[in-house]
């Protein structure tokens, strides 16, 4: 049968490999955010004395860890072709529930937010997967609903529960090698996420659904079940991030997370994940998260910008980053 082989362009008898340029292009496309991140870090270190200090680096990394945890879930959601706008609300809801739950001990403090946020994620997943409703709208309703729930249990936001359980507080505040535990949790989750995404059937299903949902269904992917899991996971991770943050802040702050979903989406998309689904990964997302943190930090380093100018600069930065990333990818593809 081999004599009927269809010879691909590079057909030299052996299995042809992709040209090197193509691989570099793929690398750049996947790691464009990482490149831009490196450039920014180098520029920042040269320009500002106090930028590349351990303290500053730690503050960027620590504060990014919560965004990172949420972004892991969002990456799955976006690769599957969906979107989750509820994460900001689930983040604050998770924090308030954790603080509230901490009066009953460590387990409740951790499990209560996971249970409630997971349930919200689950319901969203069911509505999206089983009832076929648009993720944007379902999770927009989730955004409203979860924030409403948070306000309801916090007396319209007036009551801030304090974290009573010392062990739980330590989960957010304890540190190892200068970095707090949530950083390690985020790293562990990201690694687990990478394995899940790249090396398990579930991950393959996520890509397949995002790449072509109809084809995925015909190829035997359990589309609905996978989607439910994805949104459940996103809800759980947002709740977990909220709980860890509450532990760090020792209280269930009620004014958090407004507009957070956009930051998370920006991080994921800057990281090279296509919003149309089917492509992307967690390495990029992590780079995207750090990139946002570094941009903020650089703006702080300048220190003389008015608040309005700070916004202009971060908007311009965002635009530049996506343009750079886009052009990098394109240039490589053309050559």
């Amino acid at each position, binding site marked *: 049968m081999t004599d009927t082989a269809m010879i691909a362009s590079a057909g030299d008898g052996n299995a042809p490999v992709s040209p090197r340029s193509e691989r570099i292009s793929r690398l750049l496309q996947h790691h464009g955010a990482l490149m831009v991140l490196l450039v920014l870090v180098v520029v920042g270190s040269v320009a500002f004395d106090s930028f590349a200090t351990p303290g500053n680096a730690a503050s960027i990394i620590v504060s990014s860890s919560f965004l990172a945890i949420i972004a892991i879930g969002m990456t799955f959601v976006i690769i599957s072709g969906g979107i989750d*706008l509820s994460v900001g609300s689930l983040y604050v809801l998770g924090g308030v529930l954790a603080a509230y739950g901490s009066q009953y001990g460590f387990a409740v403090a951790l499990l209560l937010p996971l249970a409630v946020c997971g349930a919200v994620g689950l319901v969203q997943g069911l*509505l999206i997967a089983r*009832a*076929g*409703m*648009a993720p*944007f*709208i*379902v999770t*927009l*309703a*989730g*955004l*409203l*609903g979860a*924030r*409403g*729930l*948070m*306000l*309801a249990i916090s007396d*319209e*936001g007036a009551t801030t529960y304090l974290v009573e359980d010392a062990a739980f507080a330590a989960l957010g505040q304890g540190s190892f090698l200068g970095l707090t535990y949530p950083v390690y949790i985020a790293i562990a989750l990201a690694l687990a996420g990478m394995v899940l995404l790249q090396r398990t059937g579930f991950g393959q299903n996520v890509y397949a659904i995002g790449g072509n949902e109809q084809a995925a269904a015909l190829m035997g992917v359990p589309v609905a079940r996978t989607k439910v899991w994805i949104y459940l996971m996103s809800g759980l991770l947002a709740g977990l991030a909220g709980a860890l943050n509450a532990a760090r802040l020792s209280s269930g702050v009620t004014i958090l997370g407004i507009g957070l979903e*956009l930051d998370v*989406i*920006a991080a994921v*998309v*800057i990281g090279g994940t*296509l*919003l*149309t689904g089917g492509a992307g990964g967690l390495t990029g997302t992590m780079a995207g998260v750090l990139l946002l943190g570094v941009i903020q930090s650089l703006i702080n380093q300048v220190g003389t910008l*008015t*608040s*309005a*100018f*700070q*916004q*202009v*600069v*971060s*908007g*311009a930065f*965002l*635009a530049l980053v*996506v*343009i750079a990333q*886009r*052009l990098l990818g*394109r240039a490589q593809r053309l050559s």
Partner: protein
Amino acid sequence: MAEATAASPRVDRARLRGWLQEYGVYAAVAALLLFNVLFTPHFVDAANVRTQLVQVAPIVIVSLGMALVIGTQGIDLSVGSVMALAAAVVVLYLGYGAVPAILMALLAGALVGAAGGSLVAYVGVQPIVATLALLVGMRGLANVLVPQLEEFRNPDLIALGSGSLAGVPFVVVAAVLLTALVAFLVRRTTFGRQLVAIGGNRAASELSGLPVKRVLLTVYVISGVLAAIAGVLATARLQASDPTSLGLFIELSAITAVVVGGTPLSGGRVRVLGTVMGALLMQLLSATLIKHNLPQSWTQMVQAGIILAAVYATRERGTR
């Protein structure tokens, strides 16, 4: 296959379902109106009707632009910031008179739209990030231009906000005219047809010789201009330019209005009247909740529920 189209009960059910999909949002608006007429005191007063229409007008105008953008499979998060920018620009140039000031504001909206449109059409940035950058940056720019709320006393601009034509507020007149204009654009012009085709299948549109990039750019410019108009009208109504909070989170309301109105986020379709109805539904909903003095927590949860219910009823069902 003509003989196969003969009616049968099953088809009727399918047709009913199709009807619900098409007109579900109208039914929802009607239901909410009925509820208010029955349970909300003073709801049918002319003054109240006027208030609701005046308040919904800017959202309608923004949503029209959003519907066009969504029709091309895009999304425009920058609309709220464009409103703020328009508010800032209009007071900056108010010294030259209301008309030049308004024109400058619209120009600003067009420029922001062009920036977003170029990023999307020519650079190939995904719409959501391109317009997210503008959302952040343009609100900042508006604040740089007008650092804090600025009141104005220009009688023309104030009249635009509070005057009326034959009893109908100018703001409402503007919304109606713009709705008609956009409906015409979508239904009767080459541009409108090309826009939905591009949203339906961009590669095919390109191969069919459609000016894809130009159409995309234009769509974002239109969305920018419409948002600027909404910003000017809202400013005129407030009698002050408030770049800090004007239009905050309006992109979410607009997107909700568009989707509740039956335009799918996957593009390839634009429903103009549905969008207006979607905006009206959201307005009536928030008015109802305010009038019945529900606490914020309840307001948000009820809104979430109603959005879900409305979209559930009008969702496109699969083949089974």
